[in-house]
């Protein structure tokens, strides 16, 4: 049923039309027994979806919350088939994918923005959408939703032909000094290979060697093609290249180049093919919302009046009502969604790493957001709200925006960690005198240790003592401020004599503001005590927390070292070295040993 604007019959005034057909007075209301019709619709729907398993198309029949009996019929007539066919174009323009979770209200808000002259809708369809009152809008939004739910991702032209789009592939060569452009038609399921023809009668033989794609079209990508596009047909299938003055491209490994996409995605790297007439607009837009890293390329191989901008990454909200450059505005997708963030668990983020909230509303509205019951309002239609800047703190959070309620949790770190299920990457080196890697880079390490091999994971080296390099003795830390130092081990001959060094350049070079109180001295033995000499005399200090007594056996073969050990101790003793009370007993063993040996 279609509504009659001239007769003043609204599309949802079902019974007036029905009664006319049945020869009853237009205002006679619902015919007797009409209740059963709802069951017919339900049967039809179930036959399409369940008995035929969608083989003849999925049902778009939906009940209506208000029009319990006639809602089924209204749902099939609020928009003509020609306009319904155009909705596939709308879904694509809105950046939607089959299966996306989106409510009827959100779809309606997006459709309201998209439905303009030039969108391909009939004047009837356009009027129906733009002038719908609340009740009609509710019914229409359900129709759009059911079309979206049934959408397989394919486009349809106004004649109902299934349409596949043609991607433009951009291949940079010689470090972007040369650009090669080609056309790659998509091949949705069911699209045939073989001859397609243009309206002008030219025939194109389409072959396909990659699933989902036809092979490159044998067409030169010239200025005329970029500005006018092309369409070829075969039966109920059509293939169209719809040109735009600004086309974003994303890298595709599968297709070996940069491939045109319907719309730029925030934060992803793109390059743009831009007609010179739009260059200033695009540059303005990128200056506002880009990351500043884009580069205009002077490349050979481009048609006249076209330019390429590479390294385009949009990080901030930027909008343009100019349909020509609308593709450069980031796809805000649904009306409110969370994006990014430092996710550490499903819907769980680190504090200070909460995701951004992207909100878009219809023109004329302000953005209103409620975060944990605090209201925010911005006079914009598209907005990125950086939730991490709201100091939300750890705990559950609730965000209300554009009719949606979104929930997530912030964690100030995770307390429970399960290491067992986690992969461990690292280096494995076989130990055969020298070390030999088992792989060219870090690899997944199997649990358990392996004899004859060591593993390096970060700063941790693991393996048996036999396989690891000999450990170094830790250095002795000495306090700055003395002229000379003698480090003593418990065995005669274990002695290191040093002077106060200058502060290491790397610590002095502004890497640390802290005063260096200590310096370290490599020591080849286990140090027990240090004698520190200054103008005021000698001081004895402990190196170990509990220094051990001196032993009488000299293990060091170097006679000079043994003599140095004895001489220093005796000199310190003669000069009344200051010994803290807790060290006096230990120190006396050193003095006695030194005296015995010198005797």
């Amino acid at each position, binding site marked *: 049923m279609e509504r009659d604007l001239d007769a003043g019959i609204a599309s949802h005034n079902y019974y007036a039309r029905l009664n006319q057909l049945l020869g009853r007075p237009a205002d006679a209301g619902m015919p007797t027994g009409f209740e059963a019709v709802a069951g017919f619709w339900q049967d039809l729907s179930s036959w399409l979806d369940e008995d035929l398993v969608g083989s003849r198309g999925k049902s778009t029949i939906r009940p209506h919350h208000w029009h319990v009996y006639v809602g089924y019929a209204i749902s099939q007539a609020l928009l003509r088939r020609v306009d319904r066919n155009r909705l596939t174009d709308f879904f694509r323009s809105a950046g939607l994918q089959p299966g996306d979770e989106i409510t009827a209200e959100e779809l309606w808000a997006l459709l309201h923005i998209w439905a303009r002259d030039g969108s391909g809708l009939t004047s009837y369809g356009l009027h129906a959408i733009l002038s719908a009152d609340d009740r009609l809008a509710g019914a229409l939004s359900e129709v759009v939703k059911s079309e979206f739910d049934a959408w397989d991702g394919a486009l349809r032209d106004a004649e109902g032909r299934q349409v596949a789009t043609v991607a433009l592939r951009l291949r940079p060569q010689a470090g972007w000094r040369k650009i090669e452009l080609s056309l790659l038609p998509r091949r949705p399921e069911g699209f045939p290979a073989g001859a397609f023809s243009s309206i002008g009668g030219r025939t194109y033989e389409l072959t396909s060697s990659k699933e989902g794609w036809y092979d490159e079209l044998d067409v030169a990508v010239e200025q005329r093609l970029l500005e006018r596009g092309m369409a070829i047909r075969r039966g109920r299938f059509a293939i169209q290249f719809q040109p735009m003055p600004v086309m974003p491209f994303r890298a595709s490994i599968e297709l070996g*180049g940069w491939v045109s996409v319907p719309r730029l995605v925030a934060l992803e790297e793109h390059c743009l093919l831009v007609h010179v007439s739009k260059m200033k607009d695009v540059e303005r837009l990128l200056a506002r919302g880009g990351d500043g890293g884009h580069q205009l390329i002077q490349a050979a191989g481009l048609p006249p009046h076209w330019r390429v901008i590479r390294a385009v990454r949009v990080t901030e909200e930027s909008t343009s009502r100019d349909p020509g450059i609308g593709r450069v505005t980031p796809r805000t997708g649904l009306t409110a969604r969370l994006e990014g963030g430092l*996710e550490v668990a499903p819907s769980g983020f*680190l504090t200070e790493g909460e995701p951004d909230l992207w909100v878009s509303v219809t023109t004329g509205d302000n953005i209103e957001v409620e975060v944990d019951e605090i209201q925010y309002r911005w006079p914009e239609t598209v907005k990125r709200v950086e939730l991490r800047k709201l100091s939300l703190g750890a705990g559950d959070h609730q965000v209300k925006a554009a009719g949606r309620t979104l929930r997530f949790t912030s964690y100030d770190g995770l307390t429970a960690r399960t290491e067992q299920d986690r992969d461990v990457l690292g280096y494995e080196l076989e130990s055969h005198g020298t070390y030999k890697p088992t792989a060219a880079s870090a*690899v997944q390490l199997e649990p358990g240790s392996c004899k004859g091999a060591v593993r390096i994971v*970060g700063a*941790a080296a693991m393996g048996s003592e036999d396989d690891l390099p000999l450990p*170094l003795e830790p250095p002795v830390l000495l306090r700055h401020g003395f002229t000379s130092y003698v480090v003593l081990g418990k065995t005669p001959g274990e002695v290191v004599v040093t002077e106060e060094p200058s502060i290491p350049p790397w610590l002095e070079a502004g890497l640390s503001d802290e005063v260096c*109180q200590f310096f370290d001295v490599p020591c080849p033995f286990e140090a027990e005590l240090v004698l520190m000499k200054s103008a005021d005399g000698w001081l004895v200090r402990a190196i170990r927390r509990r220094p051990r007594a001196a032993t009488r056996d000299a293990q060091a073969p170097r006679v000079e070292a043994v003599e140095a050990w004895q001489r220093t101790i005796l000199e310190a003793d003669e000069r009344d070295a200051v010994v803290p009370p807790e060290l006096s007993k230990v120190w006396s063993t050193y003095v006695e040993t030194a005296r015995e040996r010198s005797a």
Partner: protein
Amino acid sequence: MSRSRHELLLEWVSERGDGSWSDFKRAFDWLFARRDDPAAHAWRAARDLAALGHLEIAWGREVRWTAAPPVLTLLPRSGGRALLTGARTRELTRAAEETAERLDLYLHRQPQRHGPPTMMVLCSSHEDAEQLALELDIPYTYSVANQLAAMLPPLQSWIELAEPRPLASGLDIERFEPLQLCWRYVAEPEGPGLYRCRTWSGHEYALWNAVGGWHQVVPEVGVYETLRWEGVNVLHYDQSSGVLTMPAEAALPPLHARAATLASGVLASMCRRKGLTWTNHWNIPASVAEGIASSLGQALIEGEKNGGSGLERCTGGDRHRSH
């Protein structure tokens, strides 16, 4: 307390524990808008975190990463500083702060421009560091840099593991010029050398050896192998300052870079001199410098870097440096 973005990235890596490259890149891209730092790249951040011992990354066809276990290591020539490296979860950081305070040790955060702040504990004895590690239930070691340097395998053993596979065909290729330390576009391979091409997922590097065989290599390993072929030494070492310097185009392979970086816990710095960009690693003990050089088939050039190592400067229009 407001954290720097590099610190947040490290915390996220530590809390997550592991992930794919796209996980890492997504987190990085969200944290870093290139407007702030045009040089910011996810791969660079991952490489630096690996050099600092915070994470391990497997650069295979399917790139994966895992957080490395936390380790406390006393740094040589540091005046008693112990570096906390590996995974730094918030729980561990809180525990380190509390324990250090209880043990009367000063925990110091040193900000870094291109990396997370270095977390060091000032000790008066190596026993302080041991005690702290014991209470935090994490491994302790003295001078990880020395330990790693002593285990660095010889260059040839890395080359032997290179996958025999040519570069992807049909793409522009570049050749590494070891005498000039730059990459040059070539129409086709010009004999033995290191070549690369840019695919849509990144650069591929392959060595063409003397018998015409192709082997895909880790780029830094390939660079040092060609330097070895030509007898070019690029590692400068000044023992008095402890600075190990090399041209940025001859950056150290990942494990070597980790040994060098963990000598100070500070990322290498870059400077321009005589038309080349140089990378400086700090506080390198002689044993570490020698271990790195010997593993890479290099002879250390003594003294400060001066760019006068016999390298020719790139001048051709189609020659460029990039890494």
